[in-house]
């Protein structure tokens, strides 16, 4: 999970995703997702859809036996998704700007 955060971190600065800099909006988007997926995870544990290999989790359990790792997962993955989404957005905007600058002036007159 730390690797996911590290890999996507440059998107914030280099590609101008500006997700962490809008912390309030990030929090508002994140909270319902963390809540819904925590409930889903707990349902999955209680109904025996899945379990965790004790060798690879810390063993720290939160409410209803949900491993700490799952909470981290539900915070990290949505953040990475948003960073990707916003980075794609700013790259696309950059490409559009370049194209406009590169287009011959006459075309703008025609239009």
């Amino acid at each position, binding site marked *: 999970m730390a690797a996911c955060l590290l890999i996507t971190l440059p998107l914030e600065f280099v590609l101008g995703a500006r997700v962490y800099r809008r912390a309030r909006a990030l929090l508002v*988007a994140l909270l319902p997702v963390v809540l819904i997926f925590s409930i*889903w995870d707990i*349902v999955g544990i209680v109904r025996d*859809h899945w379990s965790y*290999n004790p060798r690879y989790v810390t063993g720290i359990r939160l409410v209803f036996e949900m491993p700490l790792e799952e909470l981290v997962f539900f915070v990290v993955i949505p953040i990475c998704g*948003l960073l990707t*989404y916003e980075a794609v*957005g700013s790259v696309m905007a950059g490409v559009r700007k370049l194209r406009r600058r590169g287009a011959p002036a006459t075309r703008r007159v025609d239009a």
Partner: protein
Amino acid sequence: MPEYTVLTVVSVLVVVALELFWWRTGIFRTAQYWLAMAIVFAFQILVDGWLTKLSNPIVIYNPDEMLGVRAPWDIPIEDFGFGFTMVTLTILLWRRRLARDAARAAETAKADR
């Protein structure tokens, strides 16, 4: 029907319905969303593939509660619905919040004038 399969299908349908009939942010019509999702899915295969590999799994799935289709590698096919819902819902909530902030800012700007 296996329960994990049902929950996944329901979650995808709910998110799509939320967007199409209620929130209408329009993201499904943008290249930005689909490009981002393609990138997310590529990375999901790497991370999820590592979490679910049958040779040495971190997450162990009950075969009775899923379809049993595992690809690529040993990723349960349902995981892709799970991931779709998680990331799409986040982007939708994010877009809604930004739109609200922008509307408020415009409102204040109007009041200032």
